[in-house]
């Protein structure tokens, strides 16, 4: 199943280093994330995987004192090159966070449409189909189609997280970053989101941080293992899980540390 389109690299880091003030949190990570595949980032807490994913949409630098060096190529173009505008970059890379974070003062509809609404798109005839499409993609449409005017915060935790996925998808980004998207959810909501991701990656390139090894094994195509700010190894998920090159990877995925 390796045609050219499937093997194309969508987003790639080259020697990525990230800092918090003078502390270096990532020590030169180079990783390719192929198009329309789900890349899982695993590793113990504090290993830098969240920092890594936050460098991919230049959100890391929003923390006072934080910065990143090295290159991040999105479809071959370095998003850290001088003159590159993070606001424009972020419109091509959606993000879903650990805790569901719908905007509190907005309805379900406004939440999904927020990326467009706040960029000045007001026309209902443009927004309505996008809202429906995004909610369907996030497998939430049937549950909320009759209550689009209700506040987004009225939904359950799992629904809120799918609402956040719909919000990210509404601006139609080719890449979706997910920072432990199910760690605050119950097993049933988690299963729904996993199903959803398997479906989504047919159209979107997904990069996901997870603490849940089974989750990585179940739904990811490729896995990268991080430890203390370094990427220890990466490769197809079945290889990393069954036949890891590095002893530390094996120890981690078999639960001997971390």
């Amino acid at each position, binding site marked *: 199943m390796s045609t050219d389109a499937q093997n194309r690299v969508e987003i790639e880091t080259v020697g990525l280093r990230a800092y918090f003030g003078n502390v270096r949190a990532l020590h030169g990570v180079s990783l390719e994330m192929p198009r329309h595949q789900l890349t899982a980032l695993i590793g113990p807490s504090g290993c830098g995987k969240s920092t890594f994913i936050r460098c991919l*949409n230049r*959100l890391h630098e*929003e923390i*006072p004192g934080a910065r990143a060096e090295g290159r991040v190529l999105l479809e071959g173009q370095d998003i850290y090159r001088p003159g590159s505008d993070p*606001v*424009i*970059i*972020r*419109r*091509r*890379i*959606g*993000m879903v*966070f650990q*805790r569901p*974070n719908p*905007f*509190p*003062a*907005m309805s379900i509809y406004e939440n999904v449409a*927020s*990326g467009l609404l*706040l*960029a000045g798109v007001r026309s209902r005839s443009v927004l309505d189909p996008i809202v429906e499409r995004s909610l369907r993609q996030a497998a939430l449409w049937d549950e909320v189609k009759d209550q689009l005017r209700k*506040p987004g*915060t*009225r939904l359950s935790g799992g629904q809120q997280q799918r609402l*956040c996925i719909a*919000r*990210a998808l509404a*601006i139609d980004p080719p890449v979706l*970053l997910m920072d432990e998207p199910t760690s605050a959810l119950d097993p049933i909501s988690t299963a729904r989101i996993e199903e959803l991701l398997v479906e989504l990656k047919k159209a979107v390139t997904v990069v996901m941080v997870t603490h849940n090894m089974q989750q990585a094994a179940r739904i990811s195509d490729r896995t990268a293992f991080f430890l203390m700010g370094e990427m220890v190894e990466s490769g197809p998920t079945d290889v990393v899980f069954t036949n890891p090159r590095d002893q530390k990877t094996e120890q981690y995925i078999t639960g001997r540390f971390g």
Partner: protein
Amino acid sequence: MKTSRAFDLWRKAKSRVAISLLLLGCGLAVLPLFAILLHLVREGASSIDWNFFTQVQKPVGELGGGMAHAIVGTIAQVGLASLVGIPLGLACGIYLSEYGGRERLAGPVRFALELLASTPSILVGVFIYGAIVVPMKKFSLFSGSLALMLILLPLVARTSEELLRLIPQHLREAGLALGLPRWKVILSVVVRSAWPGVWAAILLGIARIAGETAPLVLTSFGNPSFARGLDQPSASLPLQIYTYSISPFEEWHRMAWAGALVLVLTVLILNAITRLTGGSNEHRRAE
């Protein structure tokens, strides 16, 4: 285990005594409000008539007269102060909350606002007297508005900063991750989420300056009739109440009571609006 019946009764008795004491405390705290209201209604209600709202102060000896000039004066001064003080205060609050972490200017600005907020209001009046009234060589509605504005600004700035800081960081990140520019995230996500509280703070600030007397004594001074311009002395409700109440005339005393009643009702209504409009923080609770 010490769970005898006697012990349970003793424990419940203590609980009742404690709750009664708390209730008593609340009652004592609220009592003065009702006493004041009752007294004002009894003394003032009968003097509130059409003339009260349409007439100005009459010369001594003439019957009648009203507080129209004072009501208009208060509306003008509070309005002018709000027009400038609220946007400036909000700007300060937003700056301190959203950029205060990275900017070196934030510390001194915050400190200055705190000092300004704790300055006794008569001193604000004295300052404006020296800075504006003396050089202009006249008391004026403008200088009174300026004094009220200086009281309103730090109130709005400090409370709005506090309220904006309560909005969790991950909401800002959610907005930025959507590719929205920072100013848009601040206005449409952060300020909008905090708005019920900020709105309440603004209304409470307006209620506060509507009742201020001290800063006006040396600035807008008072006027028995309408101010004919921003550079003219102006009446205001609190000042006019003072003028009427220290006079020796029975007629004026009645007017002072009526004015006090109107002022207190206005402030109460503002507070009630705050409760009704800002009270529904269903949005904010869910974080």
